[in-house]
């Protein structure tokens, strides 16, 4: 009994007054400030708009949301918990449990959209479709393979960052498209809350990946980087098929693919790597970009403007006690 006690590490409580990595606290603060629930969004205001969509558009929308539900479920129940074992600080564990819980909120919010807009038959059919769709299943199983118990911690973080920052975007495109046409605008508001959360998740997991990678030998760093780009290529190929199957019917596939390229670059940047797709294939429709960040482009940047004059920024809240002037 005594011996056993001596060899068991003492259980420790988390001390938030001794933080080893400032990013843990910074991200915790941002994530908790971002907290939301689907009940806060007046989804029922979209019922009329939903009725203006064609049968084909409605079916596409339900399938897209069923696919997103699956990814959020995987990340909440498997991905984020799988990274707990590799956490290097207790505060990182706390952030990961926050991420896991928020994924469950995301997954549930699609059910709120469904119950507001669809019949039980349509909902059941969409979940069946997601379970049987080969492309959706292929991407889930690629990611799940990297989440397996005992898997390489660096590879787990790569797969996780790609899920957070790349794999969702074939789905997110559609509500942004509807929003740019003033359709399903409340649903789009909810999706924007999810998109903001995913940005912090992808940022944080990518950041922890960078910290872990810098401790490895040059050879191992090169091997891991190859692995990351290889996995991106494989996932991209699956995404191409998935996108074509969903969007060909409405002639939107090429536009969605630009959005995929654009987000693949951002996923790689979150890992600290250079982007992969050149500007010539990442020229996302400006209507989609402004649906992502409404009002952010009111002032033309001086450097991209066509000879426009200096414009001083729009009126924004500048108060911060640290300003001395």
């Amino acid at each position, binding site marked *: 009994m005594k011996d056993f006690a001596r060899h068991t590490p003492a259980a420790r409580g988390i001390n938030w007054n001794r933080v080893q990595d400032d990013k843990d606290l910074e991200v915790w603060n941002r994530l908790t400030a*971002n907290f939301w629930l689907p009940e806060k969004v007046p989804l029922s205001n979209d019922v009329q708009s939903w009725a203006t969509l064609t049968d084909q558009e409605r079916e596409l929308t339900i399938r897209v949301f069923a696919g997103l539900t699956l990814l959020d479920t995987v990340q909440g129940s498997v991905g984020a918990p799988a990274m707990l074992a590799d956490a290097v600080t207790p505060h990182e564990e706390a952030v990961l449990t926050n991420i896991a819980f928020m994924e469950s909120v995301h997954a549930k919010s699609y059910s709120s959209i469904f119950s507001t807009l669809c019949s039980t038959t349509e909902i059941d059919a969409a979940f069946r479709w997601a379970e049987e769709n080969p492309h959706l299943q292929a991407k889930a199983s690629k990611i799940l393979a990297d989440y397996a118990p005992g898997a390489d911690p660096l590879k787990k973080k790569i797969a996780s960052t790609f899920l957070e920052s790349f794999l969702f975007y074939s789905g997110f495109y559609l509500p942004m498209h509807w929003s740019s046409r003033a359709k399903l605008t409340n649903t789009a508001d909810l999706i924007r809350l999810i998109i903001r959360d995913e940005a912090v998740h992808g940022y944080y997991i990518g950041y922890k990946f960078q910290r872990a990678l810098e401790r490895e030998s040059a050879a191992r760093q090169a091997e891991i980087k190859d692995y990351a780009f290889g996995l991106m290529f494989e996932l991209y190929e699956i995404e191409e098929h998935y996108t074509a199957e969903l969007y060909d019917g409405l002639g939107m596939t090429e536009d969605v693919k630009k959005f995929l390229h654009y987000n693949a670059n951002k996923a790689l940047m*979150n890992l600290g790597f250079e982007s992969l797709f050149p500007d010539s294939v990442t020229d996302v429709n400006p209507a989609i970009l402004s649906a992502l960040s409404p009002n952010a482009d009111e002032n033309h940047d001086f450097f991209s403007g066509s000879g426009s004059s200096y414009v*001083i920024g729009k009126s924004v809240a500048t108060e911060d006690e640290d300003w001395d002037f």
Partner: protein
Amino acid sequence: MRLAFYSTASGNTARFVERLGEPAVRITAGDAPAMTAPFVLITPTYADGEGRGAVPKPVIRFLNDPGTRANLIGVIAGGNRNFGEMFARAGDVIAQKCGVPCLYRFELAGTAGDVTRVQQGLERLWQARTHSNAVA
């Protein structure tokens, strides 16, 4: 030096600045260098959901120096469009506070296109200044 930048441990802004291929002064949490000649500031955005705290504290301390502020001619802001209306908000806040233009906004570590556009934009900016100084 004509560029000053801030970047946190995630290093996106630092990677962007490195690819510009121009020497740049780094602002750190502990050190706010004083700028004695005209320069452009490059900074990421870290706002909360309401837009508070968009400009990182070390950048605020850096700009609190009146001499440095007098030399600031424009700001370039990093961020991520996923933050919606808050995208690159640090650029708007500094533009407003310091009465300088927001020259450009980019996401994360920027794309090759962002690097080229900023290099060319800065080149035009410095040329225009040299020219107007010569005339004056």
